[in-house]
């Protein structure tokens, strides 16, 4: 194996996607990753779909609390307030 000039296969690329998106790849690997992307439609598509997946997953977040649950918790608060 020739370290340094080793080129990444698609099979290796897909394992590095999260590290790439997290900015956790060492410089050399990041350059190999980006080089591969410029020449590979399959990996470009895979990366794009991972990005879409993350984005769509984020739409599941709902940040409200039901009035009943809030009333119950606030009731507990008032009990605690006078403890």
């Amino acid at each position: 194996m020739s370290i340094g000039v080793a080129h990444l296969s698609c099979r290796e690329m897909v394992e590095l996607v999260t590290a790439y998106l997290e900015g956790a790849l060492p410089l050399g690997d990041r350059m190999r990753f980006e080089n591969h992307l410029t020449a590979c439609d399959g990996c470009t598509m895979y990366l794009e779909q991972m990005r879409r997946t993350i984005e769509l997953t984020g739409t599941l977040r709902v940040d409200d609390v039901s009035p009943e649950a809030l009333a119950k918790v606030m009731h507990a608060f008032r009990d605690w307030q006078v403890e």
Partner: protein
Amino acid sequence: MEHATDEQLVERLRARDEAAFEELVHRYNAPLLRFARQFVPTASLAEDVVADTWLGVLRGIDRFEGRSSLKTWIFRILANTAKTRGQREGRSVPFSAFEEGEAPFEPAVDRGRFLGSGSWGAPPRGWPEDRLLRDETRAVIEQAIADLPPTQRMVVSLRDVEGWSADEVRNALELSETNQRVLLHRGRAKVRLALEEYLMEDT
């Protein structure tokens, strides 16, 4: 909207300020509920766990030292409450699952999709944008996350649903940097695959 800082909220809570507590409940009740569901079998048990967590927050606030963020501290109380509850109910995520260890390698993409050379044999094809935005697609994602192994599910829920940072997740779940990333990667890869199977099923 301007958010009060942790320090301000803690100080106001210690002064028994009701509005401060209400703000905290608005901020964290929904994510706490979702998080609690990972430990206990029913939605109603999860609600109990969250209610107990809020009591724990009130009872502990005078002793909160600010060594972790308020959010991390609250989620730790939840994890402890839920763990006790889950054990009693006969379902809990074994916390040993979070311990460091060699998990067997799981490829992000089925090996059969690559040629012997490691290049794509069956590369991913473009997704139909119009279907991506349907409610049904969100339900597919929700189900895919529910089907993940517990530790992957927690990491994906906190990172990608709740939008926590890698460090916040590592601290809350006591994971190493590498483990956090590996769990996230495997979980995301499975959610992507579920989307692909759903979106491409009749093409």
